[in-house]
């Protein structure tokens, strides 16, 4: 598997599709919040092993 070039266009997640985020702290939390804001029709789930969503 090679890294996809920066010109790849087929990355968008479509309405009704599922975005799963592993980890919900510094990066996963903001990713989830903005993904849901920009794509309300996308099903967003965060999975984290820490008890809480903490800010370090």
């Amino acid at each position, binding site marked *: *598997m*090679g*890294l*996809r*070039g*920066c010109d*790849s266009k*087929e*990355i*968008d*997640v*479509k309405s009704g*599709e*599922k*975005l*799963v*985020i*592993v*980890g*919900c*702290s*510094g*990066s*996963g*939390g*903001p*990713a*989830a*919040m*903005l*993904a*849901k*804001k*920009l*794509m*309300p029709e*996308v*099903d*967003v*789930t*965060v*999975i*984290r*092993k*820490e*008890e*809480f*969503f*903490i*800010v*370090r």
Partner: protein
Amino acid sequence: MAGLATGQSIVVADKMLEGAGIGVVKGEVTRIDPVAKNVFVSGGDLFSYDKLYLATGASPIMPPIEGIDLDGVMTLRGLPDAEKIKSRIADKEVVNIVLIGAGFISMEIASLLAENMERKLNITVVEFMNRTLPLMLDKDMADLVQSYLEDKGLGILTNQKAEKLLGRNGKVTGVLLGSGETLDADMVVVNVGARGNVELAEQIGLEMGRFGIKVNKYQETSDPDILAGGDCVEKINFITRKPTPGRLRGPAVMQGRLAAKRLAGYDVEFPGVLDAGGCKMFDMTVSATGLSEEHAAREGFETVSATVDSRSKHAMIPGMKPWKIKLVFDKKTQKLLGGQIVSHAVAPAREIDAVTAFILAGKTIAELTTFTSACNPDISSEPSAEPITIAAEQALQKLHQLGRS
């Protein structure tokens, strides 16, 4: 840690996520099947995905020295670690504390413990390199920090390696240094760096770099349906364009938001990192961005630098505190490479963000000599003492003199 922020106050309530319509699952992802596009969670649950974002963070590196498993040897990454340190310190018999590594985490723990404990603690920081905050500061700036902390009663031992942790009945009792000296220790806190949590990524065969998962400027990994960001990915240094760990909160947040934008069809690229960071110890605040003089030299730059003293307010205003900035420029292109601030007030340390913006914009020495800052007697130095401008003027003068000699 200090009791300044309670455990609950640093927790971002799941209600906020759930209120936004985000599903929150507590559990450890143990396996990913990138072909069937399934994520397996401990306890047996399975989640299917169309797109996956990996933000698994990093874990502290515990050096493989003898005694590292003794009771009383700790590190700090998350809330449970902070609770462990606090409960250990509640034991009145804990008096001698040794911190290994003089990065920002150790330095903040050391000062918070010294500042907030009712009883006197003997706190010593042991650092392998020749200075405190070695990834942020050059020796000349770090020396200011060291003497300030020594005046506050902390012991700082640089150029010293912790060879071995000593113990009795399974409990830590001391630290043997490379010099042969032994430090008494009832508690040892080790913070010498972190390693990305990349086991899941490795398991599914994502392309890896030296410092974590390899991603392109859009946070895309080598699997078209998997993006990644934060401490688990390798970053690119904005100046050197070389791979770097870049494990700080700013890049983690921005990469998360960038991945969301990418998935929503926006075309914004991640520019690379400058490792801009800050650290507060007692009433001293340190911030840094870009390359230090030492780092720049290691990267082959010939540099010209300037260090300037400034004031948090106009000189006649009560409460004025001193601060110092060092700027490092590339002699060849005259572009700004980095900045370091050591300040006795919090606000001036934020001037580092201006330095970051100037580096990102490719500003040169000459251009910075005409920088005009927002000025007010209560919130800034006099414009005539604005240290970025003065540092640039000094650098310009140095170059001018070199040109004439």
